[in-house]
């Protein structure tokens, strides 16, 4: 049998080595190498960065601005504004941001949330709204 003949060419150490390396390669498929790339939320208040977190962990956060607390939520890889002390609530109406380069802003409360990182998924560099 050809396969048996091929196996004869391996020393015992070779066989163990290949088994161990195969296991390691298998494990490497399960590790999250570089997978969080492109999904970081940066929050700035009054033009200073006050918060930064990966987008893949669900959480809520509150950021203090001149008018008071703006509350945001990270969920399912996207961020949105839950509540804001500003009069117009435009920031809540902006919906969610999930792709790199997307922005949410509460202009009256001087808070900016933007997604940073990998722009591969995005189909544009800048948004004209």
């Amino acid at each position, binding site marked *: 049998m050809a396969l048996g003949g091929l196996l004869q060419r391996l020393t015992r150490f070779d066989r163990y080595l290949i088994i161990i390396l195969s296991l390691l390669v298998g494990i490497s498929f399960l590790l999250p190498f570089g997978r969080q790339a492109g999904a970081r939320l940066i929050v700035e208040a009054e033009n200073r960065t006050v918060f930064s977190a990966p987008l893949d962990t669900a959480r809520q956060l509150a950021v203090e601005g001149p008018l008071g607390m703006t509350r945001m939520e990270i969920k399912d890889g996207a961020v949105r504004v839950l509540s804001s002390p500003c009069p117009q609530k435009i920031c809540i109406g902006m919906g969610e941001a999930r792709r790199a380069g997307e922005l949410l*802003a509460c202009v009256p409360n001087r808070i900016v949330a*933007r997604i940073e990182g990998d722009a591969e998924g995005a*189909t544009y560099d*800048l*948004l*004209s*709204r």
Partner: protein
Amino acid sequence: MFNRPLIPILLILLVALLVWLRQPGGESMVSRTALVMGTLVEIKAYGEDRDRLEGAIDAAFAEMVRLEQLFSSHLAESEISRLSAATGPFAVSRETADLLALGIRMVRLSAGAFDLGLGRLKDLWDISGENPQIPGEQALRRALQGTGPDALLLEGQQVRKQAPDLQIDLGGIAKGFIVDRAAELLLRAGVSSAAVNAGGDIRLLGDRQGQDWRIGIHHPRESGAILATLNLRNRAVVTSGDYERFFVRDGVRYHHLFDPQTGRPARGCQSVTVVAADAASADALATAAFVLGPHRGLDLLEQLPDVEGLLVTADGRRLATAGIESVLEWH
């Protein structure tokens, strides 16, 4: 050689190291955001010298803040506020004169669909304020008195209002003008590849690492969706839409793009995007085309040289000028 492999290894490593060190460090990108003019301004710049990019962006933001102090009608001490308050001839700065000259040209070009004198009308509606309201016909007509193509006379740096109580509002042009000035400052600082984006008023310098900038156009009705992308370099893109600032009463959307003829929000379009050489013209033309409605608006954009555009009509149809098709991708 054969018995001393270390020597060739070291030689190759040395040569490789030297070559690598001599190579330029590659382009880096600096991106900065700040809140200026009541909107989110983002400047992205590409170049080899990071410090130079940072310095140029700082200077551009500083210039934007300075010009905002001149042009804002919300600041009581701005030049425009003082011009609105003035009853006789008024001397303005070089920058304001430049902006007003361009504005007056746009008013004439659009046959009054774009107007610089809508200050009182905007105060009346108070769309962005705490208590927006729908004014009566009488109030609207009063607010529109003195507006029109001949409302302002500019001679050098001297401005004369035909009606003493005319309130100047540069809403549809100042943002683009400031974006242009920021872009020019970047260019003068030696930055050849950059983008200035002030809440959707975009001015592009050069290309993005050898490729076109891809500009996403916001969908006027689906939040977060993209209507189209434009592949551009060295251009300005501005979108005016009825979704930016509005209030809804009894199921009707009242937005901030007023028709100077009626004093009411223009109803022909959902959004208009204009591509031009400079953001100030694009800004004014987007407003004008929106007010004129889809057909006359598109005609205006078609007839102007070096100006292209696309729009979404009130019933959701998509139209574009003929010259834009090569760079336009609908989504």
